[in-house]
């Protein structure tokens, strides 16, 4: 099954690229600065929490090279994140900085850190439920229940599969009656 093959690939890539924090101290310092940049749409999450920050390298000539990966192909927040990484590093005294965007391996919500998921929930956005590899296949599928981030009720209802951004769906809680965003599994 092709769908199964895609799922396996997602699982393999998620395992092989978990948290690529560099080990040498100089690169780790650059990583720490870049990792302070937040998502302009969801300011409680850093690009490290999101898994958007992929790698950091310092060349022999001192040139800094940072790799970011887009969450969604058309995500307009990416340009802002790229600018902000550049600004943060320039601010920290690095004067030869390049930020590259890479598509492979493709970003998945499985890269989101547990700390990031907790911050999302506190912010009022429910974090992805389950892993991308385990997403059910087939065109007609049953959606797993999504918990309300405010009252933890599972008695919720999807209002729109595409919410304020591609990455989120809009839900409503039938117990506390509040609407909330749900960060979809990708």
């Amino acid at each position, binding site marked *: 099954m*092709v769908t199964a*093959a895609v799922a396996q690939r997602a699982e393999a890539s998620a395992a092989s690229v978990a948290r690529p924090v560099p080990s040498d101290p100089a690169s780790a310092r650059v990583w720490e600065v870049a990792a302070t940049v937040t998502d302009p749409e969801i300011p409680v999450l850093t690009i490290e929490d999101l898994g958007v920050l992929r790698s950091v390298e310092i060349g022999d000539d001192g040139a800094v090279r940072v790799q970011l990966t887009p969450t*969604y*192909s058309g995500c307009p927040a990416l340009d802002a994140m790229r600018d902000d990484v*550049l*600004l943060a590093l320039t601010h920290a005294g690095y004067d030869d900085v390049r930020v590259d965007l890479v*598509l*492979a391996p493709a970003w998945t919500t499985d890269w989101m850190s547990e700390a990031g998921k907790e911050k999302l929930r506190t912010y009022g956005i429910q974090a992805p439920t389950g892993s991308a590899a385990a997403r059910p296949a087939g065109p007609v599928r049953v959606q797993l229940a999504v918990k309300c981030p405010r009252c933890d009720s599972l008695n919720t209802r999807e209002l729109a599969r*595409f919410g304020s951004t591609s990455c989120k769906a809009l839900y409503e809680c039938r117990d506390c009656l509040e609407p909330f965003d749900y960060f979809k599994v*990708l």
Partner: protein
Amino acid sequence: MSGADLDPHGDVHGDVSVDRLALADELAGTAADGSTAVASEDAAEYALRLGDDALVLAQQLGMWIARAPELEEDVALGNIALDLIGHARSLLHYAGTASGRSEDDLAYWRDEPEWRNAWLFEQPNGDFAHTIARQLAASVYLFELYARLVDSADPTLAAIAAKSVKEVDYHRDHATQWVLRLAGGTEESRRRMLLAIIDVWPYVDELFDDDELVERLAAAGIAVLPSTLRPAFDAVIDEVFAEAALERPAGRTAFIASGGGRRGSHTEHLGPLLAEMQVLARAHPGASW
């Protein structure tokens, strides 16, 4: 420039970014290892076809913003269009590497006969049911295509496919949910859904036409031969239609559009769409904001 000169709230931010970003590689041009991949002439033509499909569909969908049946649908169709623009940017950027043209050159400065999208994607939005019928056919086709293109021998195409397939999965899901709701809704919504499928389905066959280019590329393991996608496409459509108590229009008994989009021959709907999409860039070359 020293860090002390930077005021994050001033326009220094913009100046710094623009200067430095000009040096950065564009979105799809950087492979995982940081090198900039250049497409072969054949791969560029193939990427152009896929990119044009995505961009033309995105432009059509964008016209629903502020006009959809409900606010949530404005947002959903707008977000789907945004995903498709992302795919188109990557694909057109890659296509342009073979001829030294940028994604914007390709989007704004080609005339109608130079566009390579299939006719399905340029068909008008019609009523909401027509848009959903077109979305179902388009997203099921794109899902099956990208799910196989992830194994392409061309690493850039494989990377774009791996990124896109996950997003198209949600588009397919969105279209499926609406087909079920419209077909199982009121007498009027069902009547419109049935009519929309009859009107849209003649444009499905073209998606699965092979020609010399894709045969060459498929032999090299780069492209997916379109005809090989048909059984999987029909199986998914049959599953959705069975759930919605609809029938797939029977093969050649229905009118079949002749197609020709891959050769630059288009229906009357592409010209006005391009005119609207390109007018600003052509009236004010290099405009930015």
